[in-house]
Structures are given as C-alpha cells and as structure tokens.
C-alpha cells in the first residue's frame, strides 16, 4: 500500500465530495416536497391520481436505481427530452427517493389522529391550512428518523451517478485511480470519506430535525 499520491489528490476528493453533497441536498429538498405531494395525493386525490401514484411507487421500488438512471439519461432523449448529466442525476435521485419517502410520509399522515383535523376545522381553518399547519408538522415529527435514514441511503446510492459522468466523489475516485495506478488505496480512502460523510449527514439531520421539529426526534 502506498499513499504518496494522497496530498496531491485532496483537492479532487474535496471537489467530488462537494458535488455529492450538492446532489443530495437538492434531492432531499425536491424529494421531500414531491413525497408530501404524493402522499397527500394518494390519500385525498381523484381515483386516477391515486392509482398513478401507487404504480409509480411500485415501479421505482422494484427496479434498480442504476437502470432508472440509464433510462432517464439514455432513454429519454429518444422522446426529445435531453438532460445534462447533473440534471439527469438529480431527476433520477429525486424520483427514486420520493418513491420510498411517499410511503414514509404517508405512514406519518396516517399516524396523526383524526381529531386534530376535526379540531382545526372547527376552529375555522381552511382545508389547506389544516394540512400545512396542523397535520404535516406532526406527521414529519413522527417519521423524521425514517426520513433521515432514507436520505443517508440515497447519498450512498448516489455513487452510481458517476456512470453517467457526473463529476461527484466516485467519479473523482475513478479518475484518480486511473492516474495513480493505486486503485485499492484510492477506493479505500474514498470509501472512508463516504463513511465520514454518511455519519456526519446523519448527525446533522438528527440535530437539525430536533431543532426544527422540536424535541422527541431521535
């Protein structure tokens, strides 16, 4: 094992890690938003929408992320939709994460007692206010640990977007090992960077969640 190449590679690794963090940050926001819409639509929407959401969830959950990514990046251009690699990666990650988090958010919505909605309506709040101000915050608090795990899992899965040449952490590792001929050492270092990132991300989500959603979030 030789690590003489490491000092010169710190910049590349940091740049790759920054891109990975950017990808997961955008995906978290877009994915959570989409899954709130999806979970609400699955409960209160018209029958066709309910059915469409159910199928979307099943299709995404029963096919590999890598295939979804290739389908979006290589397949969609034949329908005239051409995306650059970063956009394709963010789209694939968001659609993938939402399929898992729709179920999680949905479970949270179901866990809020019906009396909360009735009480809010009795106070004269409109339907939308009831959902946004009363039901959703309580639901998010319940499901936050599951949501946080899903975000960490997505961050780890994002390694495969290197396959469509998004210059994130794994892509930088591929480039580095091709240059240094130290494949094992390079991937070992980058694996440890991923480990640190996933531990830090979990810590960040737990502390952040506790601050925003209140106590009781573990």
């Amino acid at each position, binding site marked *: 094992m030789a690590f003489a190449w490491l000092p010169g590679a710190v910049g590349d690794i940091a740049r790759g890690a920054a891109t990975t963090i950017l990808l997961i940050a955008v995906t978290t926001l877009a994915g959570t938003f989409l899954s709130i819409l999806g979970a609400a639509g699955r409960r209160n929407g018209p029958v066709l929408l309910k059915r469409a959401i159910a199928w979307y969830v099943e299709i995404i959950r029963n096919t590999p992320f890598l295939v979804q990514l290739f389908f979006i990046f290589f*397949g969609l251009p034949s329908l005239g939709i051409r995306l650059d690699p970063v956009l394709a990666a963010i789209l694939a990650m968001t659609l993938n994460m939402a399929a898992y988090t729709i179920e999680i958010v949905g479970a949270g919505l179901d866990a809020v007692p019906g009396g909360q909605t009735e009480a809010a309506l009795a106070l004269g709040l409109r339907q939308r206010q009831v959902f946004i101000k009363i039901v959703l915050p309580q639901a998010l608090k319940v499901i936050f640990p599951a949501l946080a795990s899903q975000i960490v899992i997505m961050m780890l899965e994002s390694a495969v977007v290197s396959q469509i040449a998004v210059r994130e952490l794994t892509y930088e590792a591929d480039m580095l090992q091709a240059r240094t001929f130290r494949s094992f050492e390079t991937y070992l270092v980058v694996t440890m960077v991923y480990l640190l990132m996933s531990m830090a991300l979990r810590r960040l989500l737990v502390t952040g969640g506790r601050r925003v959603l209140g106590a009781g979030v573990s």
Partner: protein
Amino acid sequence: MIEFTFWDIVRNLLLAARWTVLLSLAAFIGGGIVGLVVLFFRIAKNKWSRRVASGYIALFQGTPLLMQLFLMFFGLPMLGLRIEPWTAAVLGLTFFASAYLAEIWRSGVAALPLGQWDAGASLGLHYLQELRLIILPQAFSITRAPTVGFLVQLIKSTALTSIIGFEELVRTSNAINNATFEPFKVYGLVALIFFVMCFPLTQYARKLEKRAMAH
C-alpha cells in the same frame, strides 16, 4: 452491422437475466451464512465481540455498495488471489448482505422477551442450544418480512456488478444498446425484467408483514 429484432433483444436479455438470478441467490445464501456468524458476534455476551460486529455492520451500511465492490475487485488481487468479476461480485454482495441480514435478525432477537432466555436456561439448555432451539427460530420467524424485503434490495443491487464487469442483465443491456441505439426500448425492457423478478417478492413481503401485524 448485426440487425437485432425485438425478439433477439428480449432473448439476449432473458439469457443474461439468468446470471442476475444466480448472483442474487449465491449472494443471499452466502450472505445468510456469513450473516449468521456476524449475528453470533453481535449478540454475544462479550462486549468486544459485540462492538466488532456493530462496527462491521456500520461499515457496510455506511459506505456505498459500489465502493465495496471496487475494493473487492482491486483488493483481492493484492492478496495474491486471481480474481474475476464473478468472484468479486459474489464476495462483495455476500459481505454486503451479511451486514444487513445480521442487523435484521438481531432486531428479531432483541424483540424477544428476556423470559425466553431464562426459560431456556431453566430447562438446562446451554447457550448454543438456547440459540438453536428457542431464540433463533423465533427471531427468524418474526423477521421474515424484512428478510424477503432485503432479498428484493439484493436483486436490485446486483445491477451494480455490471460496473466491475460482471456480465449480468445491465451489462448485457449496455452492450445491446451500443449495437442497436434503442436505449428507450432496451432499458425499458431491463426495468420490466427486474420488475417481474422483484414485484412478486415485494407483494409476498407485504403479505407477511400484514400477517405479522394481525398477530
């Protein structure tokens, strides 16, 4: 240039899907065996053995599978072993699966009332007998749904072995796509094949979960 009809594409993909199935089974069985060993360490009385097992599980659950496969592919030759994509894929997925299965089964062991251990001890069973006759059968039975759920995840994870050069479904589809330039059709079909493999298992896991809830 070779012309591919629709049925040529389907036939080649289905032939490649055999390797996906075989790899999933090998990794599930291998992962189950190694996972059992990890489980023994994870629930042992010795504190250090538990710590080592937790570290092992955290390591595999906290790093990307793709990195684990790369380390296997490039690392084993450094130990002097001649390694091919198939070996790296099976070993990589086996260790990956062992960490997840050990954690799933541990949750089953933890869910059992402590009285089960006491009852076993009072019948004069020693530790291994208690595990084999009382604890593990119950732990496996209450974690059947997440175990099947993980099998689905494992089948999907085999797609990543295409990146280290194992000729399974996704790698074959890349080759077909390069020859036919019909990515929409090819990747659509690949998704469909994975769906046909995974969906029944997902439904089965859901049924098991419902049955467990009813109890």
